[in-house]
Structures are given as structure tokens and as C-alpha cells.
């Protein structure tokens, strides 16, 4: 299987006022197509920073980070924005636009990509069907439950046919039953559609469901285990 993400000795240093803070101290790993991986670590371990890098939201201070063949540390802002279309980002707080209905939220990435109306409609329906929300397409996000919102967010991430799905605490705002259903969906997407999924979490129960777990602590990867 080909490698869809390669991280080599990536570091990230923030300036907190005058003081430099090393959030990532040199992280290396790679992820192959079709994998389901969790990045597990407590808060402050640098996993959010890593998430931003993998999501092409930010560039590493040093090292390389290759998404689907492109080193993002060399890209300018516009190229980086373009690259984000290949990443299916699922945010912790859903980050749906509340004035839009489920359909329009899922349509947004396609609209940004300038895809035609008819194709958009088709892909939105397809995407929402995959997450089991075909019947609730015209509901505003404020009318949806937490689990449903999260599924809309997943549908939105899938709609651009990304190289991989990147999920930030996908169960963080859900009750345990809904969280369970969410993980079922993720596993199903991975197994049935061979979707590569990277989950960043602090929840052991979530990481227990992924075949591979990267553990982070203090800006470093401390273990890379197959469950």
C-alpha cells in the first residue's frame, strides 16, 4: 500500500510573547492508504499542533510533512488552502455553519472548489447517505442532535473525496451511546469504503477501536503500536 502521509522530524515552535514554546519536538511517522490510526495523548502533548499540520492548516517550523506526495512546508498560503481540499477535516466542535441546513453545509467544500450545481447535488446526497442522514438533509444544524451534527461534519469531510479523513476528538462532545455509534460509523467507512482515517483523541476507548495507535507526550511520539 502507498503512503498517504509521511511526517519526518517535524517540529513546531510557537512564540508565547517572548518565550518560544516547542509544541512538537521532532515527530516522524507515516500512514498508508486504508489505515485507521489514532493519535492518543493528554492535553498539552502536542497532538492539536500535529493535527493542524496534518490538516494543512499550518506549516511545520522544521522537518517535512508530505500529504499525498506534496511537502506542505514548501507551500504558500494559497497552495496550502488548495491542499486542504484533499484533507477531510472533522472538527471537535462540529464547526457547522448554523444558518445553513445539513445539505448546504455539506455542499460548502464543493462550492468552494467551484464544482457545478448538478454534480454538487449528487455528491452531497451520496455523502449524506454514507453517514446515514439522507432523510435529514434539509434540517438546519441547530435542529439536529449532537450525533447528527457530527455525522453532517463527517459527510462534509467526505464530500470532497479526500485522501484521508482527519478527526479531532470525534466523540468529545457526544454521550457514550452516540460516541459508540460514531465509532461504528468510522470503522464502517474504513472497512467498507477503504477510507484512510486519522483520529486525534485523548480517549482510550476511541483508540481501542483503531488497529494502530500513536501515543504522544510532550511533543514527541512515545509509542507506535498495533492493537
Amino acid at each position, binding site marked *: 500500500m502507498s503512503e498517504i502521509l509521511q511526517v519526518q522530524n517535524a517540529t513546531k515552535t510557537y512564540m508565547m510573547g517572548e518565550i518560544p514554546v516547542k509544541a512538537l519536538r521532532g515527530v516522524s511517522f507515516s500512514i498508508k492508504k486504508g489505515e485507521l490510526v489514532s493519535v492518543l495523548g493528554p492535553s498539552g502533548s502536542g497532538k492539536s499542533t500535529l493535527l493542524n499540520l496534518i490538516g494543512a492548516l499550518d506549516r511545520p517550523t522544521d522537518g517535512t510533512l508530505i500529504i499525498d506526495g506534496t511537502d506542505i512546508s514548501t507551500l504558500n498560503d494559497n497552495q496550502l488552502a488548495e491542499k486542504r481540499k484533499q484533507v477531510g477535516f472533522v*472538527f471537535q466542535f462540529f464547526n457547522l455553519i448554523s*444558518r445553513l441546513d445539513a445539505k448546504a453545509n455539506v455542499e460548502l467544500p464543493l462550492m*468552494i472548489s467551484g464544482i457545478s450545481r448538478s454534480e454538487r447535488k449528487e455528491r452531497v446526497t451520496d455523502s449524506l447517505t454514507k453517514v446515514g442522514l439522507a432523510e435529514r438533509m434539509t434540517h438546519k444544524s441547530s435542529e439536529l442532535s449532537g450525533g447528527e451534527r457530527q455525522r453532517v461534519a463527517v459527510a462534509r469531510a467526505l464530500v470532497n473525496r479526500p485522501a484521508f479523513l482527519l478527526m479531532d476528538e470525534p466523540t468529545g462532545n457526544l454521550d457514550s451511546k452516540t460516541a459508540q455509534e460514531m465509532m461504528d460509523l468510522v470503522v464502517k467507512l474504513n472497512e467498507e469504503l477503504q477510507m484512510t482515517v486519522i483520529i486525534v483523541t485523548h480517549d482510550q476507548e476511541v483508540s481501542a477501536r483503531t488497529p494502530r495507535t500513536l501515543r504522544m507526550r510532550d511533543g514527541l511520539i512515545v509509542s507506535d503500536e498495533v492493537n
Partner: protein
Amino acid sequence: MKARDTLGYAFGAIRLRKLRSGLTTLGIVIGIAAIVALLSFTQGFQVAISGTFQEGLSTDVVTVSPGSGGFMGFGGESDFVFYENDTDIVETVDGVVISAATVSNTVTAEFELMDRMLSLTGVDFAAYEELYSTFTTELGEIPASPADGEAVIGYYLYDPWDNGTHLVELGDTINVYYSVRNGTVLEPVNLTISVVGIMEEIGSFGFGPSDTGMYITIDSALNYFDTEEVDSLAVKLESDDEDFIVAISEEIEELFLNEVSVTSATALLGTISSVLAIVELLLAGIGGISLLVAGIGIMNIMIVSLMERTREIGILKALGAKGKTVLAIFLAEASLIGLLGGIFGIGLGAFLANLFGGMMGGFGGMGGGGAPNGAESFMSITPVVTPILAIQALLFGIGVSVLFALWPAYRASKLMPVDALRSE
């Protein structure tokens, strides 16, 4: 992102903030309405003036009146007076074709239906005919050797209501009078006038014959007014070239030892045009200030919107939107506000201009017979909202909105997605 989608997205954002967007739009509406109302009104005014000017304008005729300097021949104080035979002196100047003395006074005419104040002017009919092409009759004729008391009258005296009800008919005899003081009582001085000619309709503004004037021979007039002095000399020149008029005017002024002033219709038209241009500029300036205020309002709403929607911008960017996409969305919002404001503003402006026009028209109508040369004091004004004005106003509204949205939109486009997503 496609333009249509950008507009659709922007429209959705505007619709969500109905009240705030509405108030911001109102700012643009007021600004555009002010500009449209004022400009269309001044344009209407110009049309009214130049329209009446063109009809009655003899560009090669200048008026010589006593008194030096002063604006448009008024204001210069002088004891200098003209006499009827001063025309002979003027005619010695090279370039002068012919001249005629005029003497004019306000009298009351006793028509069958009503009494009316009007301007009675004494002129040499033959010379006046040659001076002004408008001094020509529709009914009757201008007598070649007029008898005492034979008069040619303006068209409005004949048909003042424009409905076929005539104040006086050709051949009628009417009495006119003015009053003089004799001790403590006012005594009327009467003159019997017989109407031998009714002039063609001229238009209300200009030099020379007037629609509301009554004309008798200069000798009758001097006799009737019991004077030897005349008011002014009308002088026809060989050419209406501007430089030529200026040169001859100076020569005439020198001839009368600079105790007179020479006014030409061309110069007056120029003066009026430039005054109007200044007025227009001033009014447009007022509109401009209101648009400036509206623009700052737009900048304000955009900055507030930017702060409120930082997270949304972060989401858009995280989903692959480039800086220019975010910029386009914000500018589209501003354009829509400008477009809406512009459309409503043009409507409101046209309405206001017509309202003003109607009010001004109310002051006009008949009257103003006392003015020199019988010019009407006002004319009816129909505001002109030309398509060009409308398009300009619309573009201006959009332009102002976009201009003031540029900076907030640029700031939004430069937000880092990581930071934007972190904001609550």
C-alpha cells in the same frame, strides 16, 4: 468559488442579519437618494433654463443700461441716463447694426375678466423687429407706422391659461393706468390701448420681448410715462462671436465714459451655467457627505461581522477556501448592500426630486410681470432622472460600499485558519 455561489452565500449572510443590514442599507439609500434628487433637480433646472433661453435668445444682441459694473448689470449706481436719440451715438460704433431704446414701466391693465399688472414697454417697432426674431406676431401684425396707443401684446396675455379662454382679443380696446401721487391722493394716469398684434409664444426667460409684456411705440411710451429718459438700449451686432461681443461691448462702454454696462445674453447664459454648476457641485457634496457616513457605517458593520464570523471564516479556510475567496464573499456582501441601497436610493431620490419640482412649480405659474423685460420669476421644473444618472448613482453606491468594505474584507482574508478556528 463561482461568482453566483459567492453572491448566494453573501446574500444568506445578509439575510441572517436583517435589521443590521437593513440599517446599513438605509445609510446608502439616504446618500444615493440625496445625490439623485439633487442632481436630477439641477438637471431639470438646467433643461428648463436652456429650453426657454434657446427659444427667445438673440445671441447677437447686447443690452446697454446705465450704471457701471455690478452683477448682470444690476448694482452699479450712477446718475447717468439714456435718451432716445442715444441710439444714434451707439450706431456710430463699427460692428453695430442697429439699436433701439426701450422704456418700461409696470402698469395695471383693466381686462374684461380681471385687472392685471404687466410691463408696458415702449420700443421702436421696426428696429425691435430687426433686433429680436421673437418679436413677431401670431395674430394681427406689427404696424409699420403705428398710431398712438396701438399695442402688440405677449401671447400669455392673450391666452394665459392655455385653454382657449382669452383675456383679450385682437382689436380689443383696453384701458391701462399707473398711479401718481398728487398731494395725499393717488391719481391714475390712463392710456387707451388697442391691440393690433399678438406675439407668438416665446418662452419665459431671456432678453427682449416677453410673453407677458405689452409693447407700444417709444414715443407714445415716453409721452405716457411723462419722461425723456429711456431705460436701456438694445444693440444688434454684426456677429455673435464671443470675442467680438466683448470687444464691441468695451467700445460702447468707453463711448459712454464707462457710465454704462453692456450685458449680452451669451454672457448671461454663461454666468447662469457656471452658477448652476457651483450649486450642483455643492448639492452633490452634501450627498457625498451622507454617502461617506454610510460608507463608514458599512465599514463598521463589516468589522463587527468579521469579528462575529471569525470562526466561520476559519471553517471556510479549513475547507480549502483561499484568501481571495473570503475576500470575495465579504466584498459581495458589501456590493449587495450597495446595490440594494442604490436601487431604493434612486427610487426615493426621483420621488423627492419630483416632490421638490412640484413645490417649485407651485410658486411659478403666472406672474412676475414687474421684472425688467418682463421675465417670469420662475418656471416649472421637471426633474430629469436620466438612465446615465441612474447607472452612475448605482455604481457609486456599490463603489462606496465596496471601497469601505475593502479593509475589513482584506483583514478577513488574511486570518490564519488555526487562529480563526480557535476563536469562540
